[in-house]
């Protein structure tokens, strides 16, 4: 059997794998990406795809700011003919308790110190600007008008499409069976079809599927799947409803540019599985909660629901680090906010793989933090 070779192998065709393939191909690197189904078929394409600069740590804010610098011109840059449906209708964090409001204020203070245009708003200001919102019990919100929405499917597919155009090999419906290492160094991968590929550097960016793949070369990742559900309604008149995240029961909703509404709600009791199964309990719970906040939507029809896996870590932050196997880089564990980090994730992985200095300090994302009990605490995670 012929062994094929590349400079870099990427395992996982979510947004981070696809954006890294694009960045590497743009830099002239010979890169091959393996995806078990179609690009974005894991967590990426199933994401609610909110774009925000509301974080409470400098590391995440530096990266979030970069993402929002890239998105406005990304469709033009990738030039694939697919629409990324980028909008900046804003992102709102709604507080129902004093402690929550105090934390939002702290986050906003930090954001403003980094020139991110977030503001705190009082309930009457919210009511005046978005009169259709009925949010009994709110005591204040944090809002950033530059934040918004993107189509997570076309984002991931476009990165892959542009990477191919620049010479990357993007193999879909081609699952990797195992990684290969020799004498403590990464050697390549074997696909389920029995193809063997060798490369001196491998990026593992397979979301919750990263854990079993890393284990094939003895690397232990504390990343596990958790099912999250979303639904979409029929389209209604477009009125630029921002992403509204309710910090009492974790419900959220927003209007998409085609007029549809997306509803989501987090639930502690969701199963820790990668399978995208459906939940009737979700449909009832989310519609109850969201209609309380935006009663005008009560007559709107729900068209589809779906689910997808988060790739959770113990501190709900990603791991971007070299592993104990030389040449094996991991970028996974984004715990539900990874889609929007596609641009910055792709950039830092390209920088690491090419031996360059990453544009942000990645110390907080290191893998050893779990063993050292030095967790990366981010006050603004959902």
């Amino acid at each position, binding site marked *: 059997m012929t062994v094929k070779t590349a400079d870099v192998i990427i395992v996982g065709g979510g947004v981070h794998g696809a954006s890294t393939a694009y960045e590497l191909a743009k830099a002239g690197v010979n890169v091959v990406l393996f995806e078990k*189904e*179609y*690009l*974005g*078929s894991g967590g990426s*394409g199933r994401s609610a795809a909110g774009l925000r600069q509301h974080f409470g740590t400098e590391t995440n804010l530096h990266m979030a700011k970069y993402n929002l610098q890239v998105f406005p011109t990304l469709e033009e840059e990738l030039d694939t003919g*697919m629409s990324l449906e980028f909008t900046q209708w804003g992102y709102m964090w709604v507080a129902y308790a004093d402690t929550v409001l105090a934390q939002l204020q702290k986050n906003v203070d930090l954001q403003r110190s980094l020139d991110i245009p977030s503001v705190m708003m009082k309930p009457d200001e919210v009511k005046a600007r978005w009169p259709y919102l009925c949010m009994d019990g709110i005591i204040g919100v944090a809002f950033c008008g530059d934040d918004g929405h993107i189509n997570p*499917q*076309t984002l991931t*597919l476009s990165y892959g*499409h542009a990477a*191919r155009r620049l010479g990357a090999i993007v193999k*879909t419906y081609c699952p990797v069976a195992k990684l290969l290492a020799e004498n403590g160094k990464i050697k390549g991968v074997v696909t389920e079809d029995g193809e063997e590929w060798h490369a001196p550097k491998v990026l593992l960016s397979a979301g919750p599927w990263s854990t079993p793949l890393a284990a094939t070369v003895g690397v232990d990742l504390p990343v596990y799947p958790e099912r999250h559900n979303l639904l*979409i*309604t*029929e389209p209604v008149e477009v009125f630029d409803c921002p992403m509204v995240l309710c910090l009492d029961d974790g419900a959220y909703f927003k209007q998409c540019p085609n007029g549809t509404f997306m509803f989501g709600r987090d639930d502690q009791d969701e199963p820790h599985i990668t399978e995208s199964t*459906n939940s*009737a309990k979700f*449909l*009832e719970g989310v*519609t*109850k909660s*969201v*209609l309380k906040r935006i009663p005008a*939507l*009560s*007559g*709107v*029809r*729900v*068209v*589809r*629901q*779906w689910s997808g896996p988060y790739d959770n870590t113990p501190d709900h932050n990603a791991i971007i680090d070299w592993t104990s196997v030389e040449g094996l880089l991991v970028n996974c564990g984004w715990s539900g906010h990874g889609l929007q980090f596609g641009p910055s994730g792709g950039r830092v992985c390209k920088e690491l793989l090419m031996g360059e200095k990453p544009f942000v300090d990645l110390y907080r994302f290191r893998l050893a933090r779990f063993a050292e009990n030095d967790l990366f605490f981010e006050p603004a995670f959902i």
Partner: protein
Amino acid sequence: MTEKKNVICRCEEIEIDEIRKWIDAGYTNFEELKRILRVGMGPCQGRGCRDIILRELSKATGKPVAELLPGVIRPPVKPVKAKLLAEDNE
């Protein structure tokens, strides 16, 4: 005479030429076309367009329709008013 448009996905108003363009670009399964064009994502979830698209894919790939992935139809299958879902169903 005005030019006739051959719209095969009425939910998203996608014409057959658009489908063929993306098949030619290498997207040779229903799942990918759905995500690029939204075919099958509208209120009918592909009842109108799925068979036509699968036949196009069959022509392009040489595989019989029966061997092609048909994509997923998701609950609640037919659109349901949000307030009905929010009612207590004890």
